[in-house]
């Protein structure tokens, strides 16, 4: 039977004043909030709120590989398990992980691996579990961004952080950080991730319709926007170290 309320999209994605439906300018990001060390049982963890996205990431490792035949004698393996909660989307998702979740898991793993030194961890695995509790467009990018923070939180050596976001085209205009509605009703969607140690692209997907000039512009916009997100990531980690520092100092103070 049809649901009472359909998941319908508006005809226009810009308001009369030229702002996007959520009031943003074309190059403006949604509000982003990050936290690290949020899950006590993981070796490292992080949480992100990005627009209405709410995503947890937990890192375990280096640890034994199960099943064993997936281990590699000459290097560690990175395994990513991206999952969405059933209630994180408009129509309830089936509980079992689907093909889309497996595909995104693989993409995120490929995207994060270049910043790790897996050759230092032969025979072991790093496992990243990502749980999307609330979804509103760009979950694969937000997941990549928060997973990179969780790796740093776990104290795993990294060449740099990784930052991802989706840019695209809506109503013929190029914009950054597509919201859920823009993702579904827009014309083009381009998730991209940047590995800052070499300023290169480690995730790139595109679906839509762009000529070369548009692609050129939107990639530039993506990089600018990614720099802003990167700053938030770095500050989140700094805040953690400051708070640890303070704790240590307080303890020292206490010792005196």
């Amino acid at each position, binding site marked *: *039977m*049809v*649901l*009472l*309320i359909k998941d319908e999209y508006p005809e226009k994605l810009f308001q009369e004043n030229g702002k996007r439906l959520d009031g943003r300018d074309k190059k403006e990001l949604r509000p982003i909030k990050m936290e690290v060390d949020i*899950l*006590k*049982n*993981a070796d490292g*963890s992080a949480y992100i709120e990005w627009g*209405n996205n*709410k995503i*947890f*990431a*937990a890192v*375990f490792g280096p640890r034994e590989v*199960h099943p064993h035949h997936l281990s590699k004698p000459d290097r560690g393996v990175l395994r990513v*398990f991206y*999952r969405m*909660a*059933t*209630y*994180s*989307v*408009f*129509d*309830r998702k089936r*509980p*079992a992980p689907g093909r889309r979740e497996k595909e995104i898991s693989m993409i995120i793993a490929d995207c994060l691996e270049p910043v790790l030194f897996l050759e230092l961890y032969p025979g072991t695995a790093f*496992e990243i*579990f*990502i*749980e999307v*509790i*609330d*979804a*509103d467009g760009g979950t694969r990018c937000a997941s990549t961004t928060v997973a990179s923070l969780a790796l740093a939180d776990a104290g795993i050596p990294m060449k740099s952080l990784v930052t991802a976001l989706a840019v695209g085209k809506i109503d013929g205009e190029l914009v950054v950080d597509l919201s859920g509605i823009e993702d579904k009703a827009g014309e083009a969607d381009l998730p991209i991730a940047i590995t800052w140690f070499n300023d290169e692209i480690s995730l790139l997907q595109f679906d839509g319709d762009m000529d070369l000039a548009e692609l050129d512009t939107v990639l530039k916009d993506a990089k600018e926007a990614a720099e802003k997100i990167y700053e938030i990531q770095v500050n989140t980690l700094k805040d953690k170290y400051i708070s640890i520092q303070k704790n240590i100092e307080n303890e020292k103070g206490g010792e005196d």
Partner: protein
Amino acid sequence: MMDVKRVISTIERKYIKNNLKKEERFDGRGLWDYREFKITPNFVASAEGSADVSLGETRIITGLKYDIGTPFPDLPDEGVCTIMAELIPLASPLFERGPPDEQSIELARVVDRGIRHADCVQTKKLCIEAEKAVYILFVDMYVINYEGNLIDCGGVSALTTLISAQLPEGKWNGEDVEWTGGYFTGKDIVNELPLVITYGKIDDIIFLDPDLPEELVCDGRISISSTEEKITSIQKSGIATFSFDEIKMLCNKSLEIGKKLRKDLNLWQYKANNE
């Protein structure tokens, strides 16, 4: 999966047990004290109801989704409310990937039974048109951090989710369901507020709200759901055995603790307000 019982060494087991015998617990609680509950309702914008509930460090985020379906032939004027639980590996190295295991089935079932048999969800109010269309509610619990006693945390999480719910109100136009434009809230659905209360047992010592080390060393647990005056569900698990007198004592205690907790949590404050 890791052998859960072996995470805790024999020395720790003895230590925990000896402390409990002296009525001492690692976190300073008495034998009959709960850890602190923290409740954030409406945590998930995409869900029609949700709650982020912590019991100490144990944390469960629950969301409600709905569908419209045909009622069961033998209950033509009743909707359906299903409870599911996922123990995701993010929450603990003790949880593994894969289809729901025994522990998640147990969590879902015990929470479900505590709710079902207390006439908590008024399934007749979930009927749009007898024999034609009813609401099917999916209350899905995700364990985000595991530090013992998932059941009591899940019980409060599911209940808060139901109370916070807000569903589009449908009416039958003779052929299909259409939206009235109005909403249907937790207040319309939830009747009783049953609470499920879990005790651990090690040797002959019984205690409320086991945390993770206590849960790992204990011989068994018993979860008792109750409304203000009645016991509505009991589930014993693990290999502990209980004497008849112990069962009576625990049923008594559950009514007492339930009354206090119901007052302290004041779950009705989380009801949806926009009607």
